[in-house]
């Protein structure tokens, strides 16, 4: 068994008693990357030399100081490539940024270093986080460890696949409309999107600033609680980060869920949900009921408008945000006959189709002729969606349903049909529109592919989300290891 399969507590015990070092763990991670990443392609950049140096330095610094070992000490981690890392190339999966090296660390990167983890590299993603399959990356696709002919989901596809394939102990992803939860579901790992404002966005290459959040992808719920504990909290460098006190997430895990009230929106269980996915989620709900939770069917009346609302708002914000990719201060530049021509060529060549299409649509939605009809209207519907959730949370503690209506699809199957791809985001995008926390936990396999159970909580109540997820996970049958092969179709 690889060292990276050991439970967190066991690693901590061995680190503290000196029988295991950060260097051992980092070497194990790099060896696994060497062994499997030519198949999975989870990484854009592996920085082994630096990781080994940092691991060695950490071991020296901690040696003999038993009480100085934090719960995450020595763990090798991967960082999604839209999160800035000082002097390590950060591309956001874009040709435009393919040679960009940040001059500062994102706050989450600093906090993970303070938590004594070792970053081994940067993980593949859809270009600038736009996509649900990781196929829009300029560099290469990432392959789902459960079936290498399928996508790992996206946009944090590299983050999910690297954890599923055992290349890193955990990873960071970002979630604007489901980009942590959906790949977690597709790859059979845990993915947590915190409340908007819970984790600092400083140093994140912004896509849609009112929706983006950074969060962990881990092997289990307890690990997610530990990572959230390490990265959450106010940051003066992000004016939208919350000053609310960060509770003890680990303490929440020990509580049972007797009497917890769970809402099951019928819109998340109906038409358009693959039957295998629905079956696994229904079984998971039975498990929760068996643990004493009270589950009731409810309605989210504006859910059917969430995808349209999301694509108007996120594209509009992106069109404004991405104006900065102009080739002047950083990123590639293509010369032109004048300044405007230089901008157009730089952006024309440096930015891929998915991002261009959304930027063009966002520019349309913000233009004076369409502002009221599309952008303002979407912001108003966003209010109604938020209010739907607020009403439910007066009576219920969490909302449960599938993370994605489908399991991992084949590479190339949907890339030419963006609308179908967008409509699959129905279960995740409304959560970002309302700013709420949500987790995806594996709840079994459908036709051999992982299914994710989504648990959505009140704003800043990650504790209850983690509590319910943990209680479920303890009862659920754990998934086997992914095959890292191409699966033959069943006849």
């Amino acid at each position, binding site marked *: 068994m690889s060292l990276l399969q050991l439970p967190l507590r066991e690693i901590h015990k061995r680190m503290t008693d000196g029988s295991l070092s950060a260097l051992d763990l980092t070497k194990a991670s790099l060896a696994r990357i060497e062994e499997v990443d030519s198949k999975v392609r989870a990484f854009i950049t592996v920085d082994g030399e630096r990781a080994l140096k940092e691991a060695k330095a950490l071991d020296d610094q901690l040696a003999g100081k038993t009480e100085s070992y934090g719960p995450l000490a020595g763990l090798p981690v991967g960082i999604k490539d839209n999160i800035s890392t000082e002097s390590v190339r950060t591309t956001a999966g874009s040709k435009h940024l393919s040679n960009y090296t940040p001059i500062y660390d994102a706050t989450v990167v600093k906090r993970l270093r303070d938590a004594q983890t070792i970053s081994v590299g940067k993980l593949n993603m859809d270009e600038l986080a736009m996509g649900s399959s990781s196929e829009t990356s300029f560099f290469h696709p990432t392959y789902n460890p459960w079936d290498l002919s399928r996508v790992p989901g996206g946009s944090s596809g590299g983050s999910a696949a690297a954890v599923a394939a055992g290349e890193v102990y955990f990873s960071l992803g970002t979630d604007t409309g489901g980009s942590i939860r959906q790949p977690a579901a597709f790859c059979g790992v845990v993915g947590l999107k915190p409340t908007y404002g819970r984790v600092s966005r400083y140093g994140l290459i912004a896509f849609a600033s009112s929706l983006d959040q950074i969060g962990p992808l881990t092997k289990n719920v307890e690990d997610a609680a530990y990572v959230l504990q390490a990265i959450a909290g106010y940051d003066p460098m992000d004016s939208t980060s919350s000053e609310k006190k960060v509770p003890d997430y680990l303490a929440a895990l020990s509580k049972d869920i007797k009497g917890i009230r769970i809402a099951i929106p019928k819109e998340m269980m109906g038409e358009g949900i693959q039957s295998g996915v629905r079956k696994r989620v229904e079984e998971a709900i039975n498990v929760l009921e068996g643990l004493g939770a009270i589950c009731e069917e409810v309605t989210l009346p504006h859910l059917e408008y969430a995808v349209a609302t999301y694509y108007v708002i996120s594209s509009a914000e992106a069109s404004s945000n991405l104006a900065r990719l102009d080739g002047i201060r950083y*990123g590639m530049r293509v010369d032109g006959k004048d300044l405007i021509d230089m901008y157009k060529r730089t952006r024309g060549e440096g930015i891929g189709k998915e991002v*261009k299409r959304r930027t063009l649509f966002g520019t349309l939605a913000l233009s004076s002729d369409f502002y009221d009809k*599309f952008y303002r*209207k979407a912001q*108003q519907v966003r209010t109604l969606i938020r209010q739907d959730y607020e009403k439910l949370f007066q009576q219920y503690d969490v909302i449960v349903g599938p993370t994605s209506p489908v399991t991992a699809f084949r590479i190339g199957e949907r890339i030419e049909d963006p609308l179908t791809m967008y409509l699959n985001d129905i279960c995740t995008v409304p959560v970002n529109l309302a700013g709420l926390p949500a987790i995806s936990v594996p709840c079994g396999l459908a036709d051999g592919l992982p299914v994710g159970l989504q648990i959505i909580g009140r704003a800043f109540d990650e504790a209850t989300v983690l509590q319910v997820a943990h209680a479920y996970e303890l009862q659920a049958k754990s998934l086997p290891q992914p095959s890292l092969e191409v699966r033959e179709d069943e006849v």
Partner: protein
Amino acid sequence: MKLTKEQLEKLADISRFSLAEEEKELFLEQINQMIQLAEKLQEVNTEGVQPTIMGMPIANRMREDKRRPSVAREKVLACASDHKDGMFRVPAIFEE
């Protein structure tokens, strides 16, 4: 509504994208699908509904206007594809 090729070209112009002919054709079809999706919002009665602008209601945050260290100029300029005399260099903006 349906976007015309001329309107798409204008959008590309103000978004500062040079587009290849095949991109124009592809985007025309796909953006028209996105418009159709967005048209669905017209079904919703939003009379008197306040728009939601932020991810969470957070008021403006003030801080003291105090000097503090920033990143070194050379480090910032090193990220740029062209610079001279401590400044970013761009193609001429004014005609001779």
